């Protein structure tokens, strides 16, 4: 096994996982202009629901149910928390704090309901050999799904009426309103789609890794780091940034002790926020 190939592959796998998280987050940010950190908790919810449902139900039925649940949860959060705050013209900073509060709230609920021990979702997971490195079926699926999601999102945003409306609101909410688009409805759709993506991410990540109560927190931090690196307001950018993050992390610890993996991510985040907050793809966002 070629170690270099394996590390690069590990990087791509990690990057794909982060991309799954980042894409939904980025979609929501691009339209609503604030950082919905609670996205991580919706993801975790998806994973934990899979754990509970997979014990009895048919897998695909469970998946459909979970995706409905997570989309609904995302919309619920918007209606109960963000919408009232938007009504009183709260700043992005307030929404950020509120989203952290929701993140912690849902995390704690998960902790209370499912307990603090690590859970596994048992699956059959054959291993494959690709150009000298090893990869499992689930990992392949994750990479394929992130790529597919990216294409689907692109299609949605560029070619559908809803997507155009979303881009209009993203670009300028007030002007969009004058042409008859209802921003609040668009926000609802955005949260539904974004949280649907969170559900997909939760299911796949839950199978690939193990479930632990603060997984939502850890993943959203990596997810938004990836998004910041690529470009917060651009879904393809956030996917790119996530891949880069995954690669840098996994290749970086070839030289550094493995404990530094997270440190690499945080330092990258810090540097980008300070010097290039619009990310590598440089998509700027109009201040709300």
């Amino acid at each position: 096994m070629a170690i270099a190939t394996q590390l690069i592959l590990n990087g791509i796998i990690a990057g794909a996982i982060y991309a799954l998280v980042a894409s939904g987050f980025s979609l929501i940010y691009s339209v609503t202009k604030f950082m919905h950190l609670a996205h991580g908790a919706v993801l975790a919810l998806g994973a934990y629901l899979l754990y509970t449902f997979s014990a009895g139900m048919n897998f695909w039925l469970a998946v459909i149910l979970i995706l409905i649940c997570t989309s609904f949860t995302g919309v619920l959060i918007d209606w109960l928390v963000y919408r009232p705050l938007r009504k009183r013209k709260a700043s992005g900073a307030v929404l950020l704090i509120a989203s952290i509060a929701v993140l912690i709230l849902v995390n704690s609920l998960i902790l209370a309901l499912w307990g603090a021990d690590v859970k596994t979702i048992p699956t059959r997971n054959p291993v494959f050999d690709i150009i000298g490195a090893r990869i499992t079926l689930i990992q392949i699926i994750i990479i394929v799904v992130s790529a597919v999601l990216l294409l689907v999102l692109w299609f949605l945003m560029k070619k559908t009426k809803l997507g155009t409306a979303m881009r209009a609101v993203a670009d300028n909410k007030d002007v969009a309103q004058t042409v008859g688009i209802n921003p609040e409805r668009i926000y609802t759709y955005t949260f539904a789609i974004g949280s649907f993506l969170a559900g997909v991410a939760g299911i796949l990540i839950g199978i690939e890794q193990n479930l632990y109560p603060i997984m939502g927190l850890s993943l959203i931090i990596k997810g938004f780091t990836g998004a910041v690196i690529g470009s917060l307001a651009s879904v393809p950018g956030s996917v790119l940034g996530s891949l880069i993050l995954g690669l840098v992390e996994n290749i970086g610890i070839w030289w550094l002790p493995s404990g530094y993996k997270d440190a690499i991510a945080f330092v990258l985040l810090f540097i980008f926020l300070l010097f290039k907050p619009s990310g590598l793809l440089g998509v700027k966002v109009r201040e709300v």
Partner: protein
Amino acid sequence: MAFINYLIHLAILVGIYSILTVSLNLAVGFTGLLNMGHVGFFGIGAYASALFALAGFPVWLSIVIGALFATVAGVLLAIPTTRLKGDYLALATLGFSFIMGSIARNWTDVTRGALGIPGIPKIVRGNTEFLIVVLIVAVITYAIFWWISRSRFGKTCEAIRDDELAAKMLGKDTFMHKIAALGISAFFAGVAGGLFAHYITFIDPSIFGLGDLILLFSMLIVGGLASVKGSAIGTIIIFLLPEPLRFIGFPSSILGPMREIIFALILLLILIYRPKGILGKVDLA
């Protein structure tokens, strides 16, 4: 008898956290700097104080040294970040506390990494005595902040919060004010950290985690931004609120998340319905 011990324990924690809250208030409430990395200063103060004390320095001196380390960190953090806007500043400062956590976990020669630092010396033998120490420090801290809030420095900070451009037009050096605000804020957070370390006698890198962030912001916002008195009240309320839960006899595995759920809910409710908090003069907008 046992109950009194428990009350003393609670009072000590309230004392320590009230210092932490009012110091955060200077940065967030008075100067408008949304510093989400405040636990970074708390942790630096705790670690530095613990290490110096274990190296033989007198405990009170270690706490001061720890606070100075935190101050330096505060100033260094302020320099690049104060030109950032709102939520970017928040995230960058959050990133700072994560980086501190990483350093604590990886600089094992000094911090023993994930194993933590046990056996930190106490200041005084008994808890009652320690409570008195904490209360004295808290009262002094509050007096200092109250004085700051009425001073020209404090008023300028508030002007910066409300309209930085206008303040600049009036010839104020907004940059230096922001640095000073974060530095002072960090110093007292470091003091609180030192007191904490010498009370719990064991610290590990988890002190830098998000765990206390919601707690802190709940206390800050409930009490009210830019209100020194408010910070004390906010701390007391937030700490006391979940206590009745203990007596319902929930198993401790539910108790932990229950407290977090309560804090998060309170914070959300306050943000949505009464963002000024109890005594606040402004809200976060």
